[in-house]
């Protein structure tokens, strides 16, 4: 089962639409609450990242019987040094974005903490693609 969402860069009012839709679906499927929680936290962070940094993005959520695979593809500035961005507290968010309570540098480390598998590809000046995979049963 596939769910697709478009994300508009800079529109914080709509940040979280994808994660809340996915959350509803996972609850209806009866995925254990604590596992849903990890998926949603990771997805929400990644979604907010697109809103905060990119011009636009597409989220595709692929639901399988045993796992969910999420791909977030954005057109944006890209990440120069991914391992640096993974460190807690590192953020390139602008002052305005931080003032809204986003971009405190929790983004990638928090995604990593909540994702079972995480893969990031990025080209500076072009965009970033994030793959998140989480399993419904603890492996």
């Amino acid at each position, binding site marked *: *089962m596939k769910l697709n969402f478009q994300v508009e860069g800079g529109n914080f009012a709509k940040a*979280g639409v994808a*994660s*809340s839709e996915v*959350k509803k*679906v996972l*609850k*209806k*499927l*009866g*995925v254990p*609450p*604590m596992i*849903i*929680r990890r998926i*949603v*936290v990771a997805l*929400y*962070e990644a979604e907010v990242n697109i809103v905060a940094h990119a011009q636009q993005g597409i989220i595709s959520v692929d*639901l399988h*019987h045993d796992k969910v695979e999420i791909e977030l593809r954005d057109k944006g500035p890209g990440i120069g040094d991914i391992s640096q961005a993974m460190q807690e507290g590192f953020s390139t968010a602008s002052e305005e974005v931080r003032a809204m309570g986003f971009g405190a540098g929790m983004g990638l480390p*928090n995604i990593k903490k*909540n994702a079972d598998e995480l893969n990031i590809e990025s080209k500076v000046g072009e965009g970033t693609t994030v793959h998140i995979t989480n399993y*419904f049963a603890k492996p």
Partner: protein
Amino acid sequence: MNQSNQLELHHAIKIDADKCRACTHCLQVCPTEAIRIRNGKATIIPGRCVDCGECHRACPYQAFYVEQDDLSRIFDYKYRVALFPAVFVSQFPENISEEQIYSVLKQIGFTHTCEVEQPISVLIDSIKDFAQNEYDSESPIISSFCPATVRLIQVKYPALTEHLVLRNAPHDLAAWYVRQRLAEEGIDPSDAGIFYITPCAAKIAAVKSPVGEKKSIVDGIINMSEIYNQVMAKATGVTGNFHSCDCRNEISREGILWSLPEGEKAAFDGKSLSVDGMHNVIRILERLEDGDLQDIDFLELRACEEGCAGGIMMTSNRFLTADRQHKRAEKFPEAKSSAGMEELAEKLRIASVQPRPMVHLDTDMEKAFAKMEKARSIMCHLPGIDCGACGAPSCLALAEDMVRHEARMTDCIYIQQLWQKEGKISAEKAFRNLEKRWGENRFDVDCSKRGAKNDNGFGLMNEGEDADLY
């Protein structure tokens, strides 16, 4: 799986089928989509209902009622305690004094009175103790004061149950406190009945089947609006020797304000947030699920707007009540220390609150998957206008009922029309379908419905009463 057979949880909200006209107002407001129209009457799916009373507020025919114990039951006991929250006092207009209110309670037959929030310092210290010494998960901790929000979390936000403060609500504490006081007076516990006067269906449900503990300590529950009416009728008649509340010198500012928005928040340092009103509570819980509120330490939630001043069995306007409550609070001192009340503090602890997720399509995940895919294809055919004429709160809810085998395609009146046009079903059959959902008399001419020729307002009279009146 039929959800209606699950779990024997107690519910205080009931429907009077004689008054219900299946007008569908309640369908849309229920936060857990617990209501369906069956055979022309609203019905509640018990496992989903959180006793918040939103349906009660929305019903134009007063078909929802709150179960309660008969007031005469107090006379089963030699000593009769009226246990009531501060909002009870603040409901009354300024020309009725506290002393008059207490006097009427005695006149009704109560031998003792006690305000629920009297021993509040025990609760304040105990919650602080929980936050500092027991809780070790992610912040924030969530107040367990409002049982409607506790149940909402169990049913709809099960992953958040671990944030709940594992302490009893003030009414339980107060009941223990009263028992202790009675014992000090030398009263045999079996001779005393404690009656809890409440504005809240969720509190009644919680008292009858408490979350996280076995048995409640209250002996009976009285609907606050009933006592309100009695006080209003008798108060101005009481003269001379006014009774005072037995333990009035123990009432504190914090206690009086506890059930209002910011009441609990005020007692805690750190960053806390106070949220009231069901739709606001839902929004904040959604954000919390997204992992978005980690900088908040304490989250105070109230299902009703203006907290318990907006409870469904409150008679007075919630804003006026809250205003009077703030003014009353100014006249009382700050809460004293809870030192020496350790025994009571022990009674406050409850076991962990279990999640009770109710929104899944099947207990088997693979089957749930298949059902979801089916529901999604059904949605392609439904009109998507959420009209409620099928008896479900939305087209999606109908599609999900269908895959649970609790509804059929022809329940949708638009599909029926279409199928008739396409010659798939006869007009006769279509009409019978409608009658099945909406009851056989649904299409009779009825001039007593709202806005019709003989609309008598709510509390509709039947013909017999009508004749007596004129």
